[in-house]
C-alpha cells in the first residue's frame, strides 16, 4: 500500500499548488527568465544581479505603478523557458518578459510574445534572427555579427591576411563564422579553414593543432563564455603565441567575469566587443563600482550591462507610453536612445534591435588586474546581417 501513500502525497501536492498567489492589478510585473542553473548559470547570475541593481538604484515605482521583478530559472532548456513564459503571461500577467540566456529560449518564446501581446526584451541571446520572430521583441544585448564584422574590418586593416576560423558548433558559432568570413574575404583577407568543435568540448588540443598546422596569421575564435579561458590557455600551451599567431574574435573569449582568473597567458589578446568593464566613462565607472559593492566584488560583464540596459528600456518605455499594453510599450521602445555604461545605445525603430558602439580592445594588466582596454571604436553598429538584407 506504499503506492497509495505516494498517490496521496501527489494529490496533496497538486492540491496545495492549486492555490494561486495574490496579485495586485496595478503592479507592473517583469518576468526575467534566466539560466540560473546549468551550463549558462554565470549568465543568469550576472543578469539577475544587474537587474536587481537597477531596481535598487532607480526605485520600484515607475509612472505611478509599482514594479515587481520576478526571476525564474529555465536552465537554458527551451521547453522550460516556454512553459515558464506561458505561466508568467497567463497566471502572473506580466507586463514584460525579459532575459533569455540562449537563442533557442528566445526563439521558443517569440510566438507566445505575439499571442499574448507581451513585449519580450532579449537581454542575453545573440543570434541575429531573433528580433524578426515577433513584433514584440526588442533586444538590449548584442548580435554576434555586430562584434565579428568590425573584428574582420580591423584585422584586414592591420596586416592580418590569413586566418583560420574556429568556432563552437552551434547557431551563434555558425553566425560568427559566417559573418566574419564574409566580411574578411570582402576586405581582401583569406580564411584558410573553418573548424568547428563540439559545443560540450573537453579538449581543444586537436583542433588547435589542426589550425596551427596551416600557419595562419591569426586564429578567429568564438566559444561560449566560460570556455574562452581554457581555449587561450591551451593556445599558449602549444606555443602558438610564440609562433606569431594572434587570437582575434568577439569579446566572449575574454569575458570580464572570468578574465582575472585566466592568468597572464591572455595578455595581448585582441577582441571586438560592445562592453568592457574598463570602458572609460563616468556612467560605467559608477555602474562597475555599484555592481561590485552589491555583489561581493564581482565584476560586471557584458551580460550584466545588457540586463541593466534592459531594465532601463523597460522603465523608460513605461514612462514614455503611460499605458501598460504591449503595443504601446513596444512603440515607445522603438527609437529610444540613451547613454549606457557601455557607451551610447539606441533601439533601431525598424528592427527593434540594439545599435551600439563596438570597440577593439586588447587585454592588458592594470593595477594587478586584467582588463580589456579599448583602443579603437566602430561607432553605431547596426546588426550587419539584417542591415545587409535591408539593403
Amino acid at each position, binding site marked *: 500500500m506504499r503506492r497509495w501513500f505516494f498517490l496521496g502525497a501527489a494529490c496533496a501536492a497538486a492540491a496545495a499548488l492549486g492555490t494561486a498567489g495574490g496579485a495586485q492589478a496595478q503592479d507592473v510585473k517583469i518576468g526575467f527568465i534566466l539560466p540560473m*542553473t*546549468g*551550463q549558462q*548559470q*554565470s549568465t*543568469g*547570475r550576472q543578469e539577475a544581479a544587474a537587474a536587481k541593481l537597477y531596481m535598487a538604484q532607480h526605485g520600484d515605482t515607475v509612472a505611478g505603478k509599482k514594479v515587481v521583478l520576478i526571476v525564474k530559472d529555465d536552465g537554458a532548456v527551451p521547453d522550460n523557458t516556454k512553459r515558464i513564459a506561458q505561466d508568467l503571461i497567463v497566471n502572473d500577467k506580466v507586463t514584460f518578459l525579459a532575459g533569455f540566456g540562449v537563442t533557442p529560449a528566445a526563439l521558443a518564446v517569440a510566438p507566445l510574445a505575439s499571442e499574448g501581446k507581451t513585449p519580450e526584451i532579449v537581454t542575453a541571446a545573440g543570434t541575429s534572427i531573433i528580433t524578426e520572430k515577433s513584433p514584440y521583441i526588442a533586444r538590449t544585448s548584442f548580435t554576434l555579427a555586430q562584434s565579428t564584422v568590425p573584428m574582420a574590418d580591423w584585422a584586414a586593416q592591420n596586416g592580418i591576411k590569413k586566418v583560420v576560423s574556429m568556432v563552437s*558548433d552551434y547557431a551563434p558559432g555558425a553566425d560568427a563564422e559566417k559573418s566574419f568570413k564574409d566580411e574578411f574575404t570582402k576586405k581582401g583577407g583569406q580564411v584558410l579553414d573553418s*573548424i*568547428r*568543435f*563540439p559545443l*560540450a*568540448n*573537453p*579538449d581543444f*588540443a*586537436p*583542433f588547435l*593543432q*589542426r589550425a596551427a598546422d596551416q600557419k595562419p596569421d591569426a586564429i578567429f575564435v568564438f566559444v561560449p563564455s*566560460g*570556455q574562452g*579561458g*581554457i581555449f587561450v*590557455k*591551451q593556445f*599558449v*600551451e*602549444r*606555443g602558438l603565441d*610564440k609562433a606569431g599567431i594572434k587570437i582575434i574574435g568577439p569579446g566572449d573569449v575574454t569575458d570580464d*567575469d*572570468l578574465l582575472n*582568473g*585566466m*592568468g597572464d*597567458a591572455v595578455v595581448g589578446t585582441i577582441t571586438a566587443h560592445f562592453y568592457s568593464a574598463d570602458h572609460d566613462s563616468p556612467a560605467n565607472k559608477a555602474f562597475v563600482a555599484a555592481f561590485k559593492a552589491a555583489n561581493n566584488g*564581482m565584476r560586471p560583464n557584458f551580460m550584466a550591462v545588457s540586463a541593466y540596459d534592459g531594465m532601463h528600456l523597460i522603465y523608460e518605455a513605461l514612462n514614455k507610453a503611460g499605458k501598460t499594453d504591449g503595443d504601446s510599450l513596444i512603440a515607445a521602445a522603438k527609437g529610444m536612445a540613451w547613454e549606457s555604461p557601455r557607451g551610447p545605445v539606441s533601439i533601431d525603430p525598424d528592427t527593434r534591435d540594439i545599435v551600439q558602439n563596438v570597440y577593439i580592445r586588447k587585454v592588458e594588466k592594470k593595477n594587478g588586474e586584467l582588463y580589456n582596454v579599448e583602443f579603437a571604436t566602430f561607432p553605431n553598429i547596426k546588426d550587419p546581417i539584417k542591415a545587409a538584407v535591408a539593403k
Partner: protein
Amino acid sequence: MLTILYDGIAYGMLLFVLACGLSVTLGLMNFINLAHGAFAMAGGYCTVFLVNRLGLPFALGLPIAFLITALIGGLFERTLYVHVYARSHLDQVLFTIGLVFMSVAAVDYTMGSSQQFVQIPEALQGQFEVDGIGMGKYRLLIIVICGLLTVALQLILAKTRFGSRLRAAVDDQRVARGLGINVGAVFGITFAFGSGLAGLGGALGAEILGLDPTFPLKYMIYFLIVVTVGGTSSITGPFFASILLGIGDVAGKYYVPKLGAFVIYAIMIIVLIWRPQGLFARGAAR
C-alpha cells in the same frame, strides 16, 4: 601526427586517474557511485583555493587536494554510503544523483558559478619541441604523474597484502569475509583512496577540462564510458580503455572535426556490442 598521439595519451591518462576510482568501487562494492564526479570537482576546487587564494605552490596543492578529497570520501563513506550498500542499484543511483545535485548547488553557492582557473607555475607553461613533435609541458606532467600512479596502483594490487585482500573481496565478498578479511575496512579505505584519486584528477584536469560547478554533470559520462569499456575487474582494463578513448577522441577530432564527439560514443557502442563485459573483464559471474 605524433603530437596528436601524445595529446591523446595525456588526455587518456587524465581520464584514467579520474575514472579508476569509480571502476574499483563498482567492481569491488557493486555500487554505482554517480557522485564520483563530485569528488573530482572537490579536488579541483581545493587546489584552486589553495593555489590561487592561499598562494601555495602548485606542487603542494596537488597532494593536499588528494588528501582532502580522500578524507571527504572516507567520511562520506562511513556516514552516508554505508547505509545504501545493501540497496538496489536504482536506489543507489537516486542517492548518488541527489548527492551530485547537492554538491553542484553547494559549490555554486560558496565559490560562484564562473569557470575557475588554476595558476600553474611558469615552468609548466608552453611546450618542448622534440624532433618536430610539440610536447606540452603540462601534458607531460600529466603523463608522468598518471603513469607513476598506474604503476603504483598495479604494484599495490599485485604485491601488497592489502592488494590481495582487495582482489579477494572483489572476486567474492562472502568468501573473503569468511576468510577473516575485514571487508568493511577494505571498502572504506578503497573508497577513500578512489575519491582521493578523483580529486587529484580533478585538480590536474582543471587546466585542460575546465572547472565549474557543473563539472560532475558534464564529465560523468566520460568516466562511465571508461569504466564500461574497461571492465571493472582490474586496473589495466580501465587503463587501456582510457588510452584508447583518449587517442580516439583526440584523433577523431583532428582528422574529422565534423564528427567531433561522435567518435567516443561510437567506440563505446562498438566495443560493448563486441564484448558486453568490457574489453578486459574476466568472465565474472556478476
